[in-house]
């Protein structure tokens, strides 16, 4: 019997090692360990041995069974691995193929920069106000202390509509400042608002378009003075351009609706057809501002000896051009796909003060 067991072990292990695939291996398993299998038969034969031999023979057959089982398991794993490798080799594709297109929309720089501006000023407590694009003479001019003979009221600067209201033609607002008036007439002080929007001037050349975008700012309370105006705008431009070293300068200027009035310049460098914001030998005007004129306050029913504050107006398109190096204002409004893809913003790049305004 011992002889038989040894021979069987040799045969089976050789067969297992030679099994070419899982099916052949399964056949060997049945031949060896199945109900009628050779190892099974040997185990049965143990029962017929004399009792004193049974124990040793039984242990030997069990050892054979284990050896065969282990050999089969090992071979199976190996064959499965080979099989998988073959399948994977068969399934190979060309991964250099270009990917399938996914939507790639963009947000216009004017929208993006407007949101950047709102994010900064909202952090200083300004809320967003709005007004209509079609305005009347009162809100656009009279209430802002712009006299009837002012050049801005003439046909060459302002778009007038054929439609009239109270005998005066309606017009397209020439600045976002009428929103100051609407805000002050509609609410009660204190006021702290910004108003972004479209504005219109009758001008079309290298650096002017008949429509562009402004943000108006207005802060009215009992104590705000020019120091606050400067602080607010200095903090604003440094946050907007994301640089703490931007030189700023305030120059006296003139607007009918502010007194004192100022223009704010930031430092820049010019060269090679490019304008770089920051320390440099030149200045660039970026906004007009001032303390709200007492006549404007009186006009909306606020006592100028009690209420005071500042207003400012800045050009969104111009800020976008400066920050992102966009050379030509006119291209903003052409809807050129190439331009929009190049200068536009990824839709999920939402400017915030906590996450940063831009990448």
């Amino acid at each position, binding site marked *: 019997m011992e002889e038989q067991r040894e021979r069987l072990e040799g045969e089976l292990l050789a067969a297992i090692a030679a099994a070419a695939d899982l099916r052949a291996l399964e056949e060997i398993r049945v031949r060896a360990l199945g109900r009628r299998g050779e190892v099974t038969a040997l185990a049965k034969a143990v029962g017929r041995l004399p009792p004193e031999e049974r124990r040793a023979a039984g242990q030997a057959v069990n050892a054979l069974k284990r050896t065969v089982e282990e050999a089969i398991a090992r071979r199976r794993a190996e064959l499965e691995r080979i099989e998988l490798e073959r399948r994977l080799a068969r399934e190979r594709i060309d991964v250099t193929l270009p990917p399938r297109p996914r939507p790639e929309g963009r*947000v216009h720089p004017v929208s993006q920069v407007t949101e950047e501006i709102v994010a900064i000023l*909202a952090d200083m407590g300004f809320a967003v106000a709005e007004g209509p694009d079609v305005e009347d003479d009162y809100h656009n001019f009279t209430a802002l202390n712009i006299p009837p*003979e002012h050049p801005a009221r003439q046909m060459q600067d302002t778009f007038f509509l054929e439609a009239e209201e109270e005998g005066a033609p309606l017009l397209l607002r020439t600045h976002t400042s009428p929103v100051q008036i609407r805000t002050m007439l509609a609410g009660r002080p204190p006021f702290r608002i910004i108003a972004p929007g479209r504005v219109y001037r*009758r001008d079309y050349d290298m650096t002017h378009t008949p*429509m562009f975008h402004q943000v108006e700012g207005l802060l009215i309370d009992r104590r705000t003075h020019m120091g606050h105006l400067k602080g607010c705008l200095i903090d604003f431009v440094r946050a907007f351009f994301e640089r703490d070293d931007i030189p700023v300068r305030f120059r006296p200027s*003139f607007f009918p609706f502010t007194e004192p009035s100022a223009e704010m310049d930031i430092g820049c460098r010019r060269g090679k057809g490019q304008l770089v914001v920051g320390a440099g030998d030149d200045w660039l005007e970026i906004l007009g501002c001032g*303390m709200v004129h*007492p006549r404007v306050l009186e006009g909306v029913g606020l006592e100028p000896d009690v209420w005071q504050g500042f207003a400012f107006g800045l050009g969104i398109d111009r800020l976008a051009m400066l920050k992102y190096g966009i050379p030509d204002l006119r291209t903003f409004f052409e809807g050129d796909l190439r331009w929009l893809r190049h200068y536009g913003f990824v839709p999920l790049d939402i400017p915030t003060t906590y996450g940063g305004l831009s990448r």
Partner: protein
Amino acid sequence: MKFTLPWLREHLETEAGAEALAERLTGLGLEVEEVADPAARLAGFTVARVREARPHPNADKLKLCEVETRSGVVQVVCGAPNARSGMYGIFAPEGTVIPATGQPLKRAVIRGVESRGMLCSAWELGIGEDHEGIIDLEGGWEIGTPAAEVLGLEGPVIDLAVTPNRADCFGVSGIARDLAAAGAGSFRPRTITAVPSTGTPGPDIRLAFPAGAENACPAFLGRIIRGVRNGPSPPWLQRRLRAIGLRPISALVDITNYVMFDLNRPLHVYDAAKIRGDLVLRFARPGERLLALDEREYELDETMVVIADDTGPVALGGIMGGESTGVTEETTDVLLEVALFDPPRVAATGRRLGIESDARTRFERGLDPAMLLPGAEYATRLILDLCGGEAGPAVLAGRVPETRREIRFRAEQLPRLAGIRLEPEEMVRILEALGFGVAGGPETYDLTVPSWRHDITTEACIVEELTRLHGYDRVPPVPVTRTEAVGRGVLTPDQRRRVQARRRAATLGYLEAVTWSFVGEEQARLFSDGEPIRLRNPLSSDLSVLRPSLLPGLLAAAARNIARKQETGALFEVGPRFLGAGPGEQRTAVAGLRFGAFAPRHWDVPRRPVDAIDAKSDLYALLADLGVRVEALQIAGPPSWYHPGRAATVTLGPNPLASFGELHPGVLEAFDIELPVVAFEFDLEALPRPKAKASKTRPPLEAWPFPPADRDFAFLVDADLPAEDLLKVIRSADRRLVREVRLFDVYTGPGVPEGKKSLAVTVRLQAQDHTLSEGEIERVAHHIIEAARSRLGAELRG
């Protein structure tokens, strides 16, 4: 406003140079646009002596000059007829940039003879018109003396942008006063003395304006000066005028320009011999014409102030003189005009006639009335000095208006509005230096406003003056901080939706465009039945009405892209559209369009043109994002600018909400577009407002544990049956168990009878509280088939 540094120094005693003064001026609100130094351009040019000039061996008109220069004797070939031995001229060595041409001078061989450098003409140096002969200096100059010194150039030229409120700074003296008040030097007003009359009066002068319109010309002074000689003005005057860009004409005209820029006092001179009768100031009569000094003829109307003699208008008040009475070299008797005109009227007249003149610029901003008489004396003195003659008496029509104005200024307004404090002495010093009369103090001052400062009207103006002179840069900045510790959202719900619509559209693959708020009238008519909202003064016919829709602007952009071979694209815009001009008729619209193919050519993406369902898909995704329950939307016929069979209006209950679809071929033709275009559009205002909810809690999740069962059905229906009808019928077959219905195939072709189509649907069934049995599933399937058959005539496909 241009002036030169030496000119300024006649009014301001200062050591400061041009650059330093320019910085002070900008800090005062007198923004310097440019500082140019013509002397700097002549740095390389020096005095040289022609030792010998002899004929060129190979050319009759050229001369060979041996020139003694700063760096030795050189040989120069010269073509000037006046080149001669012994003369002194201005020499440019090789490499010098010639101002007139901007080119560097090169060594040359002229007709076989080498020439190293050049003897220059006034034209070449940019200081005169003469380019015939070379500069011939009188007297013996030391060789090598800089040209700028010899030619007596004016020095640096400063160009200011004067804001509309600072009319007084259109004269050098006004600028000097501001600088002096800022501590940049001491002000030296011109000493003006009266010139006594030694002759008889000139023509009589009358103001003839209707009652109520007297302010058209409150005062007009005329003074006759007889026996003048009107030749070229002296070199210093010519130089000064030329430096600021004016062309010297004759002594008399140059004097008027000089006084205008010096004292901001425009003048006019008439050839008295050419005036017929007396002068009358009046409004022009309809049909009257004037040939002005710019040699153009203007047609006048009754709003314009003219100075007329017996023949009609001879000058336009405050704007320009007339040709017929202009002074010439032959003029011997001159009438000097010094007048005041109503600024708005001057502005309106100038605008209407399209005349921009230095006089108009000054009159329309407002002159100093108190300068009328001194200005006349000063000009008279200059005429006598430069042209000789005898002055008659001044004839004043009207009278110089009293302009004394007072402002009470509370000193506390300065810290209150500007955030700075000044010592009372400093405040008084600044105000007095600016010309204010100051009384009272230190809490409250009674100020008399200078007659030249029409812009000073309120206490705030005084605050500006004090702050401006003290320096805006010395106002300490104070941060503006919000009042609450944590910032609250500052956007209104509508503003948030605008941001969201924009970013959602971009994630769908659209590029955001910003197009004009105005379009052409014909384009507008394609998208609206209403009356176009016309502009009175459009820039062009294609920007003449307010847009009733965003689509024309986007279509025009698409057409431009297609013309540039960008034939596949998606554009959207969020912006205003206008139903009417009135308040409340503006809407914030969202519109998008896709044109050409759905996607660019790609190895694995089927090439297909955009279709209406693309637009619908984008629209529904957007609406869902904006809080619209898209399951509740219904479909109705589209607006006229769409393809009637491939577009729809989307409604929510009775309210139209949006539209989408393929654009009408007629519309595309109007934009010259030959590719398919699909679009969607809606107004944010039309969408249901999101409800402001007190609680942010969401309803509990319904994730039932019992397994769903999916069953597929293919129905044969009439070809024109809306698929939505079938889906609705299936959904309502068992509202409890039918969880989801999806159309997965639409088929016509072999196997489907003519006039029919096959719609294949998969239905997911699920119960809330138990596992569905086969029997239940069969029963629902039966209901579905029955309902489809009985309500829509649908047959289950075998």
